[in-house]
């Protein structure tokens, strides 16, 4: 299954903007795979997403998905992982 991945920082192995996954993985499983390839562990040890990162599935923030990180993905889905801007002041 091909999952398209969009991020504003480099994640090892997604230079072609997608990953191939076996079976029908959940969003959480895909994120765990991607965090292991990144220099920045955006999935925290407790399995939660770093609050400085926004995760969207097909343009929808994951927190609004009924099954959140347990949502099963479909071939061709797009997962977006974006570092949020911090403030100043």
């Amino acid at each position, binding site marked *: 299954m091909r999952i398209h991945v969009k*991020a*504003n*920082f*480099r994640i090892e192995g997604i230079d072609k903007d997608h990953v191939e996954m076996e079976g029908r993985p959940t969003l959480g499983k895909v994120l765990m795979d991607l965090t292991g390839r*990144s*220099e*920045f562990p955006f999935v925290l040890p407790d399995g939660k997403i770093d609050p*400085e990162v*926004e995760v969207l599935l097909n343009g929808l923030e994951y927190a609004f998905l009924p099954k959140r990180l347990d949502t099963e993905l479909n071939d061709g889905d797009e997962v977006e992982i*974006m*570092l*949020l*801007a*911090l*403030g*100043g*002041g």
Partner: protein
Amino acid sequence: MLTSEELTRYSRQLLIPEIGQEGQERLKNASVLLAGVGGLGCSSSQFLACAGVGSITMVDRDTVALSDLNRQVLYGQNDIGKKKVDVAAERLSRLNSSVKIYPRFAEITEENASKLLAGIELVMDGLDNLQARFALNSACVEKGIPFIYGGIMGLKGMVAAIVPGKTPCLACLYPRIRTHERPFPVLGSVPAIIANLQVIEAIKILTGRYAPSAGRMILFDGGEMNFFRLEIRKDETCKVCGKEMG
């Protein structure tokens, strides 16, 4: 040429091979725009002035409030209600009277960003909103001026040197305006850390050296005492730098 007083004043940093007398002369002739004199700008402006950056233009739209004083170290209780740029200019002049300080009490917008950059070599980001950052980013890309982005929240912070023509720009990094709600939680020492990382990168660029944060995002997590260095990605469809990057 450096004067004998300057040779003494900057003697410790003249010993740094990457700066030396040639680098110090470049700093003396440099013009920096400091966008925002809040938590980041208060710290970065002091070290830019101490380092001998010749001209600092400061732009800020705010007055000093009591809730600023845990982190905005140029201001004191007696400054509440005063324009930040005016107080900051006075304090910085006391730190280094040879630095030319130009305070501008103004909001940075798409309309005035390009004009503010006249004669400027480098922009230090100390802004508290993304709209103004994007306005400056676009103007910097257009004019080929490096922009040192800095951000903070709680115990975390980030720095990236954006060098037009060489690195992705801020609009590549943040294709849409999405940030945390205000007011931000901030521990005062965190903006000081981030601002000083910005200053280190700025001084390297101003002295003609390589800035390792160019094209990268340096993340600081003060909770875990970790630094991360991420390669940031150019957005091929970026409306700001897409064509400029070829």
